[in-house]
């Protein structure tokens, strides 16, 4: 097994993918805890579909994928939050609306430009070959920024997640932090999307949080546990993706499902 790992690391495209992937997995698990607890999980899902649409657009126009996706998905995050907070449309319906429209637009763009080729398949289900040299640097920088912002605002994110009304009442600008959480999520989704695939990226956000919540009893422990689960699941998933030649996103999700089942079992045994 270690031989295979050594072999994997000798390919530059895999070291790149691993480096970015570990960082993105870390970001996703940090934000995931907050999103799941705030009942915002669907926002991750909605944003990933918007991400797919914007990737299709970027390819059709021959622009750099990150440069197009980041602003579009960021804007969508802003809109989703606004819609689910202010309007008469229920939050989940608003998300379904935006995500299916983005998907439809993406499909139309693709069929009018490249057609359903391997590139598109990679967008949907993820590929470890997806990262180019240029994207890697930007991805690393952005994910480090996400992690730093999360750490700086950790206590306030906890307060806003646990009890938004109290936070507002005692003078914390809850709207600002909701927006911060949504924007950081948008960045994370865009960064992780090509490795995980648009269809699967939201699982990277949701699964580690749910898994950690099975056994941990404090917010801090949930966060720590979720990051460990997320990063290890990513590495194991990549290993199988490489050895069995399966799409990386799917392989990582399956490892996350297994983690979830094991943790559920552990919590059942603990209680019994």
């Amino acid at each position, binding site marked *: 097994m270690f031989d295979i790992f050594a072999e994997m690391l000798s390919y530059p495209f895999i070291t790149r993918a691993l480096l970015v992937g570990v960082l993105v997995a870390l970001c996703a698990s940090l934000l995931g805890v907050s999103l799941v607890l705030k*009942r915002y999980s669907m926002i991750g899902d909605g944003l990933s579909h918007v991400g797919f649409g914007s990737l299709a657009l970027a390819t059709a126009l021959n622009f750099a994928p990150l440069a197009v996706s980041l602003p579009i998905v960021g804007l969508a995050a802003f809109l989703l939050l606004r819609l689910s907070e202010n309007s008469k449309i229920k939050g989940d319906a608003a998300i379904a609306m935006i995500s299916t429209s983005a998907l439809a637009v993406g499909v139309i763009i693709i069929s009018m430009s490249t057609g359903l080729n391997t590139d598109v398949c990679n967008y949907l289900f993820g590929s470890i070959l997806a990262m180019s040299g240029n994207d890697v640097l930007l991805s690393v920088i952005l994910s480090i920024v996400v992690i730093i912002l999360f750490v700086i605002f950790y206590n306030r994110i906890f307060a806003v997640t646990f*009890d938004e009304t109290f*936070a507002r009442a*005692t003078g914390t600008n809850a709207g600002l932090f909701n927006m911060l959480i949504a924007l950081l999520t948008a960045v994370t989704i865009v960064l992780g999307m090509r490795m995980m695939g648009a269809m699967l990226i939201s699982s990277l956000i949701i699964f580690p949080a749910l898994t950690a919540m099975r056994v941990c*009893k404090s*917010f*801090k422990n949930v966060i720590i546990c979720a990051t460990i689960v997320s990063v290890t699941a990513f590495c194991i998933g990549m290993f199988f993706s490489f050895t069995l030649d399966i799409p990386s996103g799917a392989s990582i999700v399956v490892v996350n499902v297994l983690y979830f089942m094991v943790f559920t079992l552990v919590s059942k045994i603990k209680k019994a």
Partner: protein
Amino acid sequence: MALISCKNASFDYDGNTVVSELNFEVDTGDYLCVVGENGSGKSTLVKGLLHLKNPQSGEIIYGEGLKSTEIGYLPQQTAAQKDFPASAYEVVISGLLGSKDFSPFFSKADKAAAKSNMELLKVTDLAKKCYRELSGGQQQRVLLARALCATEKLLLLDEPVAGLDPIATNDLYAAVEQINKQGVTVIMVSHDVKTAVEYANKILHLNNEQAYFGNTAGYVESEVGKVFLGTAPQANAALGGAGNV
């Protein structure tokens, strides 16, 4: 100048006025109980006092330099909190955030303040326990300790004893009384009008308007008070025993 003066304030949801003509004053050290039936606008008034909702008309004036970051609040519980993985300590210390300007982390003084509030409410030994696994009474004490972290001046409690057993209820009332005696102004929404008149020095009775405001002794003697307390002869006939809710 009073700590809070409410002048002709009214509140609405989408243009439907739910409570109006509020005129009352709260002074430092007061223990005001807000009573009234379900839907009479008590929680709405609390939201107004917390700046979570703007008055439709009229105004609420804060005196003595009271800032919005200096109000402690014990909410009617939301469903989301019930399965939240957080330790009691994490919940309590989060109460300090409102008064911190920019610094992202808690200082030694913050931690000491959280600990002393936990001691005051006798939840120190629950510090590491998971909030969702505490009993209803323990959860309310933890939330009260958090509210105390947010204030030294004014505490707002919205039906803090709803769903608690009699012993936990009495413990909570005793804790609030002790906090009030230490100089913290208390505004409590309560269903339990009999206990309200026992502890509070002022009563505000709402029935979508202001049915009574004044000191407790006056309330017990007033018509509305007599009916609600069930001491008026026709009380049970008129309200179907609502005074006992």
